[in-house]
């Protein structure tokens, strides 16, 4: 049972940070930025590459995450803002195009084969009936710390207050004297950093291939939309829900229901179920689970 909870938590951690980034940036810029999941991939892959060329793991991670955040800001400034002026649909296609370029870059730098961190081999730890590896614990710790720092920033600082104001109502925030252009840049930076950290957390637990970004796209959308765009902690709840459904669906033995001993759904259907949840969310609860009124989108 505890193993089940650990599995759910681990999968949720994969999604959480990236979903927070997506939730923040989608509601702020009013278009779904597909390139964000590639920032996650960049974080993980770049950290691995930096470690390969000699940097200690921690340093590699910090560099990778900060660099990715900067890339996010630059792309936003020079590409996405201009595309948004044409229209949000155009910006969405543009972000798709950018993510294709990222894929090309990954292919020529690290190649199509998966890569991993060089970590010391260690035995898994047993807690209750679950086996948890050291990298999984470190990854979880990173996610937890990132969440904590973000929460502190978001709820307890002036900067966080300004960010929340700008996300909720940009015009009003501007009118109250907040430098919304600077806030937007900061929000984009933080989203990029969160996404990259999410990618690092995934990379620490196993291997990453260049598809990791696009594989995250739909589950991250699902988490962000279920939690309500613009609500970062809703995205956390969304990630937990998606993860729970995915894990339940593939670990339940449907055998007894179908008159057989053992019937499991193929693992690939885990993602199919989360995609269907996303569709359901967009159809019936486009503003998220935590909003009482259902408005037409």
């Amino acid at each position, binding site marked *: 049972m505890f193993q089940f909870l650990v599995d759910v938590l681990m999968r949720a951690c994969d999604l959480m940070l990236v979903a927070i980034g997506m939730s923040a940036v989608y509601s702020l810029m009013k278009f779904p930025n597909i390139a964000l999941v590639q920032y996650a991939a960049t974080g993980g892959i770049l950290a691995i590459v930096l470690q390969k060329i000699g940097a200690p793991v921690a340093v590699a991670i910090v560099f990778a995450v900060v660099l990715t955040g900067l890339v996010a800001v630059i792309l936003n400034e020079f590409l996405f803002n201009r595309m948004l002026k044409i229209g949000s649909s155009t910006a969405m296609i543009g972000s798709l195009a950018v993510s294709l370029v990222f894929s090309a870059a990954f292919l020529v730098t690290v190649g199509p084969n998966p890569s991993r961190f060089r970590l010391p081999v260690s035995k898994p730890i047993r807690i209750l009936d679950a086996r948890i590896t050291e990298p999984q614990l470190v990854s979880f710790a990173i996610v937890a710390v990132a969440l904590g720092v973000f929460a502190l920033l978001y709820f307890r600082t002036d900067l966080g207050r300004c960010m929340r104001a700008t996300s909720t109502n940009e015009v009003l925030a501007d009118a109250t004297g907040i430098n919304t252009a600077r806030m937007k840049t900061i929000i984009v930076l933080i989203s990029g950093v969160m996404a990259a950290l999410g990618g690092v957390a995934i990379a620490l637990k196993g291997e990453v291939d260049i598809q990791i970004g696009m594989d995250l796209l739909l589950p991250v959308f699902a988490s962000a939309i279920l939690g309500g765009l613009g609500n970062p902690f809703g995205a956390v709840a969304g990630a937990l829900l998606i993860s729970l459904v995915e894990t339940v669906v593939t670990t339940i033995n449907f055998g007894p229901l179908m008159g057989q001993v053992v019937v499991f759904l193929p693992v690939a259907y885990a993602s*199919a179920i989360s995609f269907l949840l996303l569709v359901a969310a*967009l159809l019936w609860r486009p503003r998220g689970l935590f909003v009482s009124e259902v408005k037409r989108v």
Partner: protein
Amino acid sequence: MSDFIIHVTIMSGLYALLALSLNLQAGLGGLMNFGQIALFACGTYGAAIAFHFDFGAVSGFVLAVLAAALLGWAFASVGRNLQADYWGIVTLALAEVIRIIATNEDWLTGGAQGIGGIPPLYAGLDGQTRQLVILATVLLLVLAAGLFCRHLIGGRYGLSIKIMREEPQLAASLGYDTIALKRQLMAVSSVLAAVSGFLFAHYVSFVGPEQIDSSETFLIWAMIVVGGLGNNAGAIVGAFLLQFTFAFIPFVKDWIGLPSEYVAAGRLLLTGGGLIAFILFRQSGIVPERVGGRRYV
């Protein structure tokens, strides 16, 4: 070499049908369909399943067209008033679900291995002649489809779709059932996509789930954006241009002496980079949609 060029031309023609179809949806109807490849899949799998269960090619065609029309109708019915980008995400998610089902339901689709040995078109003819006849068939179809789309867009139906696209409330106040219009448009363009899929299955004689990855939809989007959104000739131009450019990447790679990853990377870079370039610098594409200038009736 000439065999190669004939092959690339045939593939370009099949993609042109897909591009014309997506152009009807996105260019005329403003429908951001990111699940276009699923409609193509109705064509390929319709042919493959009919072959697998010995139903015969004609049944395969009927199956393909019916499935596509139904799926297109379903896409249009999903979310009565869903915003364009949300609807785009829904279609992307549904197409991915279909691909996952195709990958896992071996009994129906051959699973990840797919279904091979599909009888080729014009089996009675010998090699070279057959290729040329297939080429002629495909090009004729592209011409017919192009003329069909042109007259559809230029006729009364096209006008009603344009009003629906630009001012849905105005359209409703004039008595247009916008959902019905969307459904019809999706059904018609889906059939076009399925025809392409059906021919494709009988040309390459093999159908598998890797052919219906979401990256294929993105490629078709690039074709219509580069070719000129809303313009039929543009869709055909975009298809041929991108296919021919892709076809020559391996030669360029060899000439420069780059490793094989560069082929896929080159395609991604061209698709993504091309999209970005056209969005930023020539938003109307190579052959832009004409508004107003054309002689009225």
